[in-house]
């Protein structure tokens, strides 16, 4: 797999990151070298091996269904640049 200008633009857009031309060039180089390095793994035969989701052998810890009343709004909204009557206020997003 090779990263080109189109791919880097797409990744940047999906990540909501703005890149100038110089930065794009740098990232194309960086990402390609990372991919090249990872591609060494292609030398391993993985036929009939299920993809691994996690390397830990422990089991997923679970909690009981108990709710904790926190009345969180003050704390949650503390860092919000804009808020109104307990809501976050953000620039209008309408689809």
């Amino acid at each position, binding site marked *: 797999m090779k990263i080109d200008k189109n791919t880097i633009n797409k990744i940047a857009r999906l990540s909501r990151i703005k890149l100038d031309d110089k930065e794009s060039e740098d990232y194309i180089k960086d990402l390609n070298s990372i991919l090249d390095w990872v591609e060494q793994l292609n030398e391993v035969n993985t036929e009939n091996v299920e993809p691994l989701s996690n390397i830990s052998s422990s089991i*997923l810890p*679970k909690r009981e*269904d108990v709710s904790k009343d926190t009345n*969180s709004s003050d704390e*949650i909204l503390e860092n919000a640049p804009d808020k109104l009557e307990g809501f976050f*206020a953000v620039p209008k*997003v*309408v689809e």
Partner: protein
Amino acid sequence: MNNLIKGEKHDWEMVIGLEIHAQVKSNSKLFSSSSTKFGSSPNSQVSLVDAAMPGMLPVINKYCVEQAVKTGVGLNAKINNYSVFDRKNYFYADLPQGYQISQYKYPIVGEGKVTIDFKDGTSKDIRIVRLHLEQDAGKSLHDQNPSKTYVDLNRSGVALMEIVSEPDIRTPDEAGMFISKIRSILMYLDTCDGNMQEGSLRADVNISVRKPGDEYGTRCEIKNLNSIKFIKQAINYEAKRQIEILESGGSIEQNTMLFNTSTGKTRPMRNKEEAHDYRYFPDPDLLPLEISEEEIGKIKLSIPELPDELKYKFIETYKMSNYDASVLTADKQTSDYFNDAINSDAELKNHSKIVVNWITSELFSLLNKNNLELNNSPVSPENLGQLVKLISTNEISGKIAKDVLEDMFTSGKTARQIVDEKGLKQVSDQGEIEKVIDEVIAENPKMVEQYLGGKDKLLGFFVGQAMKLTKGKANPKILNDILRQKLNKKN
């Protein structure tokens, strides 16, 4: 049954699949301990996990997992011993994490099926592709301010079950019946409260049209419909739109649509320059979810009788029709009410049809008129049973029973009390009825002449007069028989 839409050159068939989002009925969220209570003040039930503060880690709610398994069993589906949580990445103001934790390649529940029942007695299976667990997003309010969107994260992180059907549905009605059936199963299992108004149950609809027998056409997806009425409206509108495009030589563009509930129209979502690219990958914060056969077995033991089992039991025990049984069992309240009513008296077992009719037509219409739910019915199942007993033993006529039921509804008295107090007991005594008939005949000699002259319809007049004299209490069958005899004797 004709499921086709007439077109200019040929008929069209709809191909419909549903994705149903059902909120798990739990106290706390899927990956945090915040409350799931509906209608609390904004952002009051948001933990640091739900707000995606750096360093917070999700811990799964055991109960939500069990509810998903339970629902899977209710959908006659395969439960997967191994499933994986993935991140579905997208940016939106009400999604603080920047991704939704969902299940992609390895869902907790695999293929299943549910059956829908038609009025004509036939049924149809709709196949289920999968059920997976995922987080709900927060809620955005767009219409409060011209330049701002307000965000409430109370719903953020609440557990959802997404149930995906195969495109086996062919009409808007079938789509409505399918979601009703899913809702009924969820409510019997008590895994979701089924409240569509509050958004606990909502659906995305995938729809395409084709010439019958052809390959599937290109589909469009209508997002986030929260009533059966809107689902049907949206399907009808969208199918018409697609047919118009195809018949005028155009082609359907695969698109995500929104349904406007006030205009009844669908329109494409504007923000589509970026074709969805969710870049799913396994969430490194969560280990795979493993469930042993033993745990599944334990959960299965906790499963109550489901609508279909109950339906077959009713058909078997009471010899009722498939449709009657499916109407009674669609809602747990209704089947419980019927059970209590019919078991209130041993003799009612042979009159199940009357019990069904008095619940589903008379009682339901009174409840509707008064905006009441069955569980708030002023008439208890036992009292309704008593009323039906009075009808079935000919103590009162069906006509009088309607008045009695209305009286029961408002006064809260039992059927027996009302019949005794008002003296409504049906007169079945031959002698008494004969006396009344003699009176009617004697008072209307001209009518008798006309009747004997061939005006058969006048029989109704005599019946009416006799009923008037007995205040509607005469047994109509006996009255009719004797009246005919007496009149014909005059001939």
